[in-house]
């Protein structure tokens, strides 16, 4: 799967973000993480192949979420759907 890593000083937590390359909320969320100097990985789901689509959907369903973008997974446990700045700050402790 084509995960893209963005480096940042705020790297206490492992952050994975599922996004869509054309989604404005996703872009805004990436900008928020960049501006906050957060280290994270993201996958633009629409740019991956069918096999990855299924895997990503299964991963979100397994975590009790229907696919919705952006979805952030913090430390492989906390799931945040949508650009919820307060929740992101709380989970990432900044």
């Amino acid at each position, binding site marked *: 799967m084509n995960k893209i890593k963005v480096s940042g000083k705020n790297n206490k937590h492992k952050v994975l973000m599922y996004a869509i390359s*054309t989604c404005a909320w996703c872009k805004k969320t990436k900008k928020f993480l960049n501006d906050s100097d957060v280290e994270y990985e993201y996958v633009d789901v629409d740019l991956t192949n*069918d096999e990855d689509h299924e895997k990503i*959907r299964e991963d979100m369903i397994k975590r009790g979420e*229907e*696919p919705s973008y952006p979805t952030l997974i913090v430390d492989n446990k906390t799931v945040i759907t*949508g650009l919820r700045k307060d929740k992101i700050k709380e989970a990432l402790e900044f």
Partner: protein
Amino acid sequence: MITLEKVRQRAEADARTNGYYLNPDPDFLQDLLEGLKRNEERYGYPSCPCRLAAGNLELDRDIICPCDYRDPDVAEYGTCYCALYVRKDLYEGKTPISPIPERRPSEKQARSYGISVEAPASKATEPAPAMKVAGQPAEVKKKLWYCRQCGYVVFREDPPYVCPICKAKREMFAQIEISALG
């Protein structure tokens, strides 16, 4: 090829017709319009920029912008899923614009994840991602529906949430049963 200006005009005209407004943040709006343009280039129709498309018209019909879910979402939350279309109070900044939950039913979403077909000989400015046919398209059973209030007839999987002609709610739609005359 579709231009960004054309995409913008189409959205503006649709907002005017329906009494909605486009997102007041110029950068956010620009991102969404570019997303619609990109999708029209890669799929052949302006699929929702915020959802995963199957790349198959029949499977994506409900998420072609303006999607089936826009009207009920703007009515309930003040914005569509993408926040492209917003209600007046959100446009004027009296109510904040926040992300809203996905209304698209799970079973329709699921179809986007099992199948993706190659973009239709896309003349996209950048190469479309390599996608293979993963299987046969899920079957879409279309039916005839009519609006009991104004008589509008539509041939599709489900009745619209809101009648595009008279604005009657989904409950006002009934299926037309066609039986052979004996």
